[in-house]
């Protein structure tokens, strides 16, 4: 028999080897659940559950909403800069608390009457606490929100200036992240930069924890948004 003509036929000298049982291939679980056409991304699986309201990462927060929120718009993640960024002002605050004790040793305030000294002390401590409160507010109000429709950056700069930037998932062109410095590497925080097609062509999430996981969440939501728009068309 010409083997080249009939390749399915077994030649008498061909050893018969039983076919290897192929191991069942485990399908990698996608981070987007596939039980419904527009399944929600598993943000709890990626980021875990929120520990407390002062956390830097708020996963599906029930206590958070914003003025520009649309009806039915779901917040997936609320982000603030990593708490370690508060360390510099906390150190300054502690130093300011103990500074009057230092003045006591130098006897610099002894030239003033007691009533004046007391007033200066009250003034100093009030100033110290307002300084700390203002710094805390700057951190607390600097919030990045990822919803099912868009990405939002709300920031209150220089006490009175409100900065609001948003971009829809369809407008996102590129996402990148960077982790800088010793603290950034040690505590795993960095910047996430989102290039958009809009006029304000960049949104920067500064010093947020787990930048790589945040990118994954954004990508999952981008896919979900694409699915939804694909279904709508």
């Amino acid at each position: 028999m010409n083997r080249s003509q009939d390749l399915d036929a077994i030649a008498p000298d061909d050893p018969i080897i039983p076919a290897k049982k192929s191991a069942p291939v485990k399908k990698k679980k996608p981070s987007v659940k596939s039980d419904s056409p527009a399944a929600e991304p598993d943000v709890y699986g990626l980021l875990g559950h929120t520990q407390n309201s002062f956390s830097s990462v708020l996963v599906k927060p029930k206590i958070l909403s914003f003025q520009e929120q649309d009806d039915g718009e779901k917040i997936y993640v609320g982000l603030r800069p990593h708490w370690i960024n508060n360390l510099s002002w906390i150190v300054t605050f502690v130093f300011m608390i103990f500074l009057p004790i230092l003045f006591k040793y130098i006897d610099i305030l002894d030239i003033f009457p007691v009533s004046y000294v007391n007033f200066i002390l009250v003034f100093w401590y009030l100033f110290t606490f307002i300084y700390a409160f203002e710094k805390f507010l700057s951190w607390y109000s600097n919030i990045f929100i990822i919803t099912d429709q868009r990405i939002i950056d709300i920031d209150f700069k220089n006490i009175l200036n409100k900065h609001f930037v948003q971009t829809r998932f369809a407008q996102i062109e590129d996402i990148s992240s960077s982790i800088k410095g010793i603290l950034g590497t040690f505590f795993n925080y960095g910047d996430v930069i989102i290039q958009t097609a809009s006029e304000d062509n960049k949104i920067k999430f500064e010093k947020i924890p787990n930048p790589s996981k945040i990118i994954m969440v954004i990508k999952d939501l981008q896919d979900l948004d694409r699915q939804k728009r694909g279904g709508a068309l």
Partner: protein
Amino acid sequence: MIFPQNQVLTSYFLSAVKVFLFILAAMFVFLSAIVVKQVASITKSVSDKFNPTLTLISYIFLILTLILVLTVLTL
């Protein structure tokens, strides 16, 4: 006594300090008012569980600074 040899000079010096502290306290009231405004703006923009607490703290600061201004007058 700041200037033991001269009572008048001491009095002038303390008056100048008092004016300085009054201006400082007045500026402080202004700063507290800005903080109150900031908190109001934040609470209006982003709703959170702690917003009432933040608002309360900001108003406490404002009241304390107003008391501070009044205290300067009694020095």
